[in-house]
Every structure is written in C-alpha cells, then in structure tokens.
C-alpha cells in the first residue's frame, strides 16, 4: 500500500523491512571492518590498479604511455602519433574528472568524443594540468596515463546518450552481491554518476539481464532522451564480467569492493577501475536492499574461508538468482 507520506519519505521501519542499508551501516558494519587502510592505495591510484590487474591477467584498456614529469611532455606529439584514438586521464582523479577522450584525428588535430577539435598544444596543456594536480583530490601532484579508447558494445551503446555505459558489481569478501548498469543521459553530460542524472539499471546476477531502472530515484522503463527500452537487456559477456569483478578481490584484498567494467565491442568486458567505497544507489536500481545479501555472504565467508572465485560466483548466483531477486524485492 502506498501511503501519503511516501511522496516525501519512507519510514525507518519500512526501510528496514526492505533491507536497505544506509551510509552509517555501510561504513560501520561492512566497510571499516573489512577494508584495511593500507590496501586503499591499490584502488585509489589507477596506475597501481592497472599494473596489478595486468599481473592478475584481467582484461584492461591497453596502457599506451605514462607521463610522470613535465619534461616528458615535450615528446608527447611523437608518442601520440602512433595512435588514432586514446584516453588521457589522471591516475588519482575521481568521478571522471580530467578524463579526455580522443576519438580520432583530422590532419594533425585531435577530435574529442563530443566532436570538438583540439590542437596538439591543447592536448598537451591538458596533460600538464593533470601533472600539476588540477584534477587529483587535495591538489597533490599526479601522473597522466594514456590508454586505449574503449568502444562500447553496440547493444549497450544504443541505450546511452554519449559516454560508454559501465557495469558496477558490488562484492563482499569476493562474493558478488549486486550489480547494476549505469548509462549516461543528456543531463549527466556523458558521465555515469547517478546523482548527476545518469540512469541506474539493476542486473539479475544469474541471467545477466536488466530488471529495473531508476532515474533521479524514480522508476523508469525507457531512456528519457533516446526512448529505448531499458529492461530485459542482456549484458554481453556477463560470465566474464562476474569473473573479472570477483578476481578484483584477490587482487586488492578489500573485503567491501565495487568493480567498474565496460564491455568493449571487440575485447569484451574490461576493468576500468575498482572502488573501495561504492555507493548505495545500487539498491534503488535493483529495487532490492543489500542487507539480506550481505548478511548471507558474511555467514558463508565465515563458514567457508578461502573459497576460489568460481565457487564464489556459483554461490552468489544460487543465493541471489532470479527467483530470490523476485522474492526479496521491495514490496509493500
């Protein structure tokens, strides 16, 4: 039953019934006890993440080059001349800041994803700003990474307004707990941040199909700009998505972890970044609270420590599959 107050808020008792967890609970119960401070560096510095992922054999966007000092930027144009498309990003940026996507060339000029043309001086200046710390938190010095430009799988590209959709998987002790697809809208300006207006779409862990979508906290079924159907879509290479996300646990040792992946047209899923403090909007996207799942995983991990990644995925698929999803969802 929808009550009059639901227009503005939902009661704590109702949230509890839905199994929704809040920030205090995420931090106090799951994040702080399971994530050791010393491991944070492995995910906060994207260059470190990349090198570790390469060692683990995870698919990542190919790293072309790293600029460490301003002097090295002098050779920039000759280094970049080998590549038609690439991405320049800061190693310690957050929320997609400072990411420059070059899709192609026009003569000796570069074409951005949005179609705007940049001169090589402008690209160089962007890299200089990254090195100076313009985009890293606290303004500390940073390094600029140049990596391959991912071309999103056409099945997913057709539901996103610019910007590649990414898949986020949240894990506890390396067991996938929940997953969602984030697609950009005109309002989110190509970014996949939900509070900036991107759409969050929940994914059924068993089938890899989308089940429910939210935009600004409201349930939707169609993309507001493109009018394409958002529900029932299959994430290409879903098994590999789960495999790579789950291996992120072995790689970082972080108990509560979010993995962000993009599905490439040719290569399939690649790991973009890992996140030690993944947000809670995934619950709204799935219309399911995290608490039951996290508690189940906690029990399982205590009872059977040291389970390998494929068994962990099997457990999650069995425990949080289609029927469970249907039974657990928010209901009044």
């Amino acid at each position: 039953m929808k009550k009059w107050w639901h227009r503005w808020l939902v009661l704590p008792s109702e949230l509890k019934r839905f199994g929704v967890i809040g920030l205090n609970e995420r931090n106090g119960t799951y994040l702080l006890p399971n994530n050791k401070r010393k491991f944070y560096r492995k995910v906060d510095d994207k260059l470190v993440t990349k090198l570790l992922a390469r060692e683990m054999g995870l698919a990542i966007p190919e790293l072309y080059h790293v600029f460490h000092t301003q002097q090295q930027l002098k050779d920039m144009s000759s280094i970049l001349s080998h590549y038609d498309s690439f991405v320049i990003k800061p190693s310690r940026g957050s929320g997609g800041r400072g990411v420059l996507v070059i899709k192609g060339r026009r003569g000796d000029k570069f074409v951005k994803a949005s179609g705007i043309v940049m001169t090589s001086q402008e690209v160089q200046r962007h890299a200089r700003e990254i090195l100076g710390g313009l985009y890293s938190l606290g303004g500390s010095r940073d390094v600029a990474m140049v990596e391959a430009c991912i071309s999103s799988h056409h099945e997913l590209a057709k539901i996103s307004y610019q910007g590649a959709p990414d898949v986020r998987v949240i894990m506890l002790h390396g067991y996938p707990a929940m997953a969602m697809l984030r697609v950009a809208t005109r309002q989110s300006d190509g970014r996949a941040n939900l509070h900036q207006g991107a759409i969050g779409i929940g994914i059924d862990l068993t089938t890899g199909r989308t089940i429910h979508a939210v935009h600004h906290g409201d349930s939707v079924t169609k993309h507001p700009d493109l009018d394409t159907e958002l529900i029932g879509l299959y994430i290409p290479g879903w098994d590999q998505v789960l495999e790579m996300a789950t291996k992120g646990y072995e790689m970082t040792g972080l108990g509560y972890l979010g993995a962000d992946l993009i599905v490439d047209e040719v290569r399939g899923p690649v790991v973009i970044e890992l996140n030690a403090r993944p947000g809670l909007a995934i619950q709204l996207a799935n219309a399911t609270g995290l608490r039951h799942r996290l508690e189940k995983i906690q029990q399982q991990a205590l009872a059977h420590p040291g389970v390998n990644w494929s068994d962990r995925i099997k457990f999650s698929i069995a425990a949080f599959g289609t029927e469970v999803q249907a039974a657990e969802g928010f209901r009044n």
Partner: protein
Amino acid sequence: MLKRLFSLSGLVTALILLSAAGIIYKNRVLNVPLLPEQERGVWLIEARISYEATGKPIKVVLALPGEGWLDPEEGDQISLGYGFSVEQEDGLPVGFWSAREPVGRQLIYYRVRVKEGAGRYEFAQPRSAKVPQAREVRAKGSRGVALAAVVKAVRQRSADDVTYVKQVQQQFQKKPNDESFSFLQHYYEKKYPDTWEQHFAMDLLKMGGIPCRSCLGVKLEEERGAHRPINLIEYYDRAENVWRVVLPDGGSMENIVLWTRARSMLEVYGGENSEVTFTAIKERAPAGVAERMAESPWWIATISALPVSERAPFRYAALIPIGVLAVVLLRNLVGLVTLGTFMPVLLGLAFLELPMSAALIMLLSMLFGGLMFRAMLSKFNLLVVPRVAACVVIVTIFMMAVSLLSYKIGAADGLRVTVFPMIVLAWTIERMSLIWDEEGAISAIYQVVGSLVAAVAAFAMMKIEAARYWVEYFPEVLLILLAVILLLGRYTGYRLTELFRFRSAADVNA
C-alpha cells in the same frame, strides 16, 4: 574481564562513572550547584599588572575601586614576594605593593567581584568642601579661536550643564564637517594619541565653565578579553551639586563600571614598561565556589584555579567539544552535508563573538566575494596551493575592507571580523567552487546551507548558559560527551536524509 574493560561499552561505562563521581563529589562535598545562578550576574574583574624590574626596590600603586559601591578590602591579590596593603591617597583607596629587589618580568594580579548594575555613576559633592571651579584652558592662536567657535556653537544649543555636556558628546558622535572641529580633532589626536577624545571633551567642558576631571573604568564584556582601562570623564553638575561620570563620546555606560576616580590607574616606582590590563568574566557560580574548588587538588580544581586572564580563553576553548558534538549529530544522525568536517564549529565560534545577523551577512558576503574572485582565477588554470593562497590574500583584503567600511558607517562589530578563521574560509571557497564545477550550483549551495545550519546549531549549543556553566565548573561532563560521541561512532541506523533519499523504495510494487 580485561577484554571486557577494553571493549567500547566498558570504556563508555568507565567514562560515565568517572565523570559522575567527579560531579557528585563537587556537588555534595564542595557544594557546587548543578545549575548556574539565575539571579543577576556577578562579575569577576581581574587587574593584571606587569612590569620589568630593574633590580631596584619597587613600589607599585594601583588605584582600587571604592567610593561606596565596593569595599577594596574585599578584593584579593596574587603576587610572589610582595608586601601588600590597602591605603588611602587623597581620600581614594589604592593598593600598595612593595618588594626589595625583584628581577625580570613581574606579574601582580588583583581581583574583585562586582554585582551587575552595582556600579555608581553619580557622587555628591561634600558640603564642607569648597565649591569646585573650572580650571582655565590656556589656548592661544588658532587653537584658541577654534575652541571658542566650537564652544559658542555648543553653548547656543544648550540650557544647562547637563545639556551642555550632551551637546559636547554629540559633537563626537556626529563628527561635524566643521573646520574648527576637524582642526581640533587633528590637534588632539596628535598630542594625545590614545586619549584625545577625553582631553578634547574636557577642554570644551572647562571652557564652558564646567569643572571636570578624568577617571577610569572597566568594561564588563566576556568576549573582549584583556583590555586597557576605559577613559571616562566626571563633570560637576552645578545645579544639582553632584559629580556625574560619562564617556567622552556619550556612549552607553551600561556595561562599564567606574574603577577609580583617581586620575592615574597605575604607578610603578623602580620598574619599567609597566602596564595594567583588565579581564572581566561572568561568574556563573555563587561566591565561594571558585575558591573552594581552587583550593582542592588539581584534578578537582581544573580551570577555576587559574588567573582570570588565563581562564577566559580556556572557558572558550572548552566549548569546542559541544560544537563538535552538534556536528557529529547533524552529520551522522541527520545526514547533513557540510563543506569540511569541522568547519561549522569554527564558524559557530565566530558567531559567539558577533551578533548573529551581522556575522551571517558578513560571512555570506565574504563567501560570495571569494567565489567571484575564484571564478576569475579559474581561467588561469593555477595549481591548487597557489590558488588557495591567493584566495587567503583576497579574503584578508576583503576583511580589511569590511572592517574599515563598518567602522566608517559606525558599526563597531565589523572591527571584529578577524574572528573568522581565514584559512578555513579560503578552503571553503575553494571546495565550494570545485563542487560548483563538478556537481552544479544546486549541490554547492546545498552544502553551504548545510554548513551554515550546522554552524548555527553548533553556535546555539555553545550558547546555552547551562552548558557553559558545566564545562567550566564540571569539566567532567566532557568525559560524558566523549562517551556519547564514541557511542555515536557505532550507530549504524539510517540518517534522516536517507529516509528522503530512498523514498522511491516505497514506489516499487513487486
């Protein structure tokens, strides 16, 4: 057992027990009341004399309050190695300290308790004494001409001694754009830099035939901290036969007490660089409590044993944990988003020193000005540290401008804008503009409003009279505060704002 003691609940219990023990001991044994005095406030005024001893025998003479409203013997003094006595000099009480050969920087404290509103500002002229006569002002040349012109204007607009004085005071308030007045102001400012208003006003009174002399007062204001004596004037009202004490510029005497009718406050024979400053703090406990606590062992005595001038900043600092608690409550229970974790506490402290509305307007205008400048800077793509440093400089200049402007308009509050933590302000501007760029104006304004709400809440909690009383006389409550904060650290329930954030959970009908 040991494990239990080190668990959080064990620690919290221990803290609360310890604190309760202290409170009960003070309340039962030392008779410290649990709530502050409701009646009219009592102020504790402390004079702090400091001078440089040169190795010669020393005599220190400090004018003491007297004249019927206060018994100088009631005061007490703290000094090391001095003989002390209260004597009369020209019918006025003075404190007299003497020592043979002190060396180095010397400190002497004298303190006295004053009931609010007990001060006297009128004194009858004894009938036996000669009728006072105004002393002649010897002013030649252009100063004489200018004085005569001002006196003439004042006299025309007055009927008797009282209205004459009022007119003189008005001259100082309005600062008329009059040639003779500006000339004289310049003259007196140069000759008596610190006391020009007093000397100027007295000369005008004397030329009007009104007998007058200078005297000194003390300001009863907690936030002011240590200050020099206030220059006052007493004039003889010939019609009523009384001496009246006033401020040269006619300001309110409401929280000023007349300390002495003597012309000089302090004389030090045999020492150099002598100075006396006054600190007044409001006593929230009945008389005797502070003394009983000061005589207890140090862990009971706490801050009551310190000299008043040391106590004043301490009382202030002890409020910070209360503000911090407010921020913890708002962030973790309510879910308010603020710029910088404890920035609101610093703002709340600034609000304590200024009237609320003035503080808010000043703060918002400074944030706005800073943001405009920051927007200008962002074109240059500066690195972060120089960019914030530039913001600090701008905020400083802005503060100077606001101070000057409000001084010119005549609002003294502006003079204290320096209470705003400038570095914090600059970082706030920086973070706000980053959020503005990244998440849009709404998000930035939302966070600024959140910070202001938290600052006002912190201010309101620090302003509670009972809270101020407790941290001063029962600092043990800080342990309870700590216990509460520790417990809040383990709160894993929902935040108030999350009830709104997750409201669409109720929309889904499975």
